[in-house]
């Protein structure tokens, strides 16, 4: 047993689960059956698109657009069991509603990072 994989501690497993909850994914796989791949593809496409929208909107400080995009992505992330992504979107949504520009900038960066993490995790599991 490889020490890295065998020693993979609980925390990192927990983090992985926060990036993408495997149980949820498995449930969806069973539910969607033949449509599962389509669903994943749709999600990834939507995620990339909305993140791009948020980045652009943040740059020009269009708070309403940020808010709506973050809200929408939050929902679909939640359905997929991508908990960290969900939380970041929630923060973005609130910040955009409150006009907290600093928080928006921070969260947008976090968002980009998380996007890649989710993508990686999906390609591992799906």
């Amino acid at each position: 047993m490889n020490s890295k994989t065998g020693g993979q501690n609980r925390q990192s497993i927990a983090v992985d689960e926060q990036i993408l909850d495997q149980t949820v994914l498995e449930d969806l796989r069973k539910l969607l059956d033949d449509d599962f791949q389509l669903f994943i593809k749709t999600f990834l496409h939507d995620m990339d698109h909305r993140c791009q929208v948020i980045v652009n909107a943040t740059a020009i400080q269009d708070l309403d657009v940020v808010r709506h995009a973050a809200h929408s992505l939050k929902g679909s992330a939640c359905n997929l069991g991508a908990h960290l992504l969900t939380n970041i979107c929630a923060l973005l949504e609130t910040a955009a509603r409150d006009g907290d520009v600093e928080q928006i900038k921070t969260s947008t960066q976090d968002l980009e990072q998380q996007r890649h993490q989710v993508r990686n995790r999906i390609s591992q599991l799906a």
Partner: protein
Amino acid sequence: MEAQKNLIDLDPDAEVALKVLIADDNDSDRLLLTTIVQNAGHQVFAVANGQDAVNAFNDNRPDIVLLDAMMPIMDGFQAAEHITDLAGEEAIPIVFLTSLKDAASLAKCLDAGGTDFLSKPYNRLILAAKIRALGRLRKLQLLVRMQRDRLAIHHDHLIREQEVAKRVFDNIAHPGCVNSPNMKAHLSPMAVFNGDMVLAARKPDGGMFVLIGDFTGHGLPAAIGAMPASEIFYGMTNKGFSLQEIISEINKKLSNILPVGVFCCCALVDFSFDRNIIQIWAGGLPELFLYRGADKSLSKADAIEAVGSKHLPLGVLSPQRFNSDVQVFEMRQGDRLYLWTDGILEAGDDKGDMFGEDRLKTVFLKNTTIDVMFDEILGAVDQFTGRQEQDDDHTLVEVKMVTQTEFDTYFGEKKQEKVSAESVGPMAWEFKYTLRPQSLKVFNPLPLLTHMLMEVPGLRNHSSKLYTILAELYSNALEHGVLGINSSLKSSSQGFAEYYRQREQALNSDFKGFVTFTLTHRAEPDGGALVIRVEDSGLGFDYANIEQNLSGNDGYCGRGIPLLLSMCRRFEYFDSGNKVEAEFEWRFA
């Protein structure tokens, strides 16, 4: 419509394929939802914004709508409003899809017209179960609407049937003399369908019958009994039958046609304007008031004489057990008789109290002008119930005692039938009819004899006069001649009640004797002449002094002989006074 019709045909617990509209702007969410709902066996229409949702609703009329709260172009709340408008009276369930978790937001979904909300992440079990539950709700709503529509159709049918029935009834039960000036009547427009009827007719001898009736039940069953009752009333009154005969016949008819348990509370009153007497048969009605307000010597309380029902309602007893005994009251000019059904006494206010006899009596005690008593009674009831007049369900009748002349002025002689030499009918004939004790006890020959005379067209225009002649002569022959009752009793109105009592007693006893009618008719150059001869087995009377006796008459003895003398061209007594002939002439028009 097809799908909806299928929906309600199925058993409520059966699984049913519903049409579900899904509106979510997020592609993956929309895909997820669609899959879940389709897997549950339903048909899905999926759109990405609020406007498309409204359009899709309009085009496909789904059974359930799932709406994302936040969507571009038109959000979920606005879409919900439009969809609710389009749905009209259909209560289409709207489920809001939301990732909002706070109570305020969730409440907002429901306040915006949502039936339920579904939170993300979507749980397929919950979603499927919610859709099934909403499907059941939808079915129930459709069922209720269908039943309501059926009820409305039935109700319309019923109303139309009643309208037809009312027209038929109006044709049969013509108002008679309900409109005569000595009578006031208040009935609700649908009185007959509340079971109430008021009938009034002029008697051939100049008097008046008034009948008030209250059938049990409502609607057509209550109205049906009124038709044969009124036919009998008007038909028999016209032919000259007595109150007892008419009320017995109506009871016989009703006990034949009405089912057990259905009956008619009723009063029939015989007004005799020349004798200042009324006779009342009352069964099942609350007390009626005879009000002698014109008599200043009486206190208001004493002026009210309450007349209670002595009999069971009509339609209860078989003809053999029926009792037609009447109560006799003196009633003078200006006195009034008030008749009502229990609708007035039971008129209720919104607290559930009833108007009752005490309040009714109070109206009488407080009244100062008798002419407005009728309106005051109605006013008091309306004030008590607080309802509009057209909603009322009460029946009130007031009859004033007037002189025969006043009553006759209103009616006059009915329109004259043209009689010419070509259409004379039987002109030369003789008819002899003898009645012996057994027949005298049970049979009234007057309608039969009148009917005979009506076979002659020339006599038809004089039916009232002829009836009066026959009635007067028969009464004298039977009561004075055969039964030996002292006719001077009739000369006072108190005496009349006693006279009537003696008449009944004597008629029920074992007596001997007979009355013979001989009717002879012959043609004359310009018309015809009828001789009515009545002979009785009695001792007769001193008719030589008849002129003197009559001149002292102040009218209580009735129209009697003076009237007969005025109607006939010849009027003679023979032998001991137990034979009399009245000769009546008529002319071509």
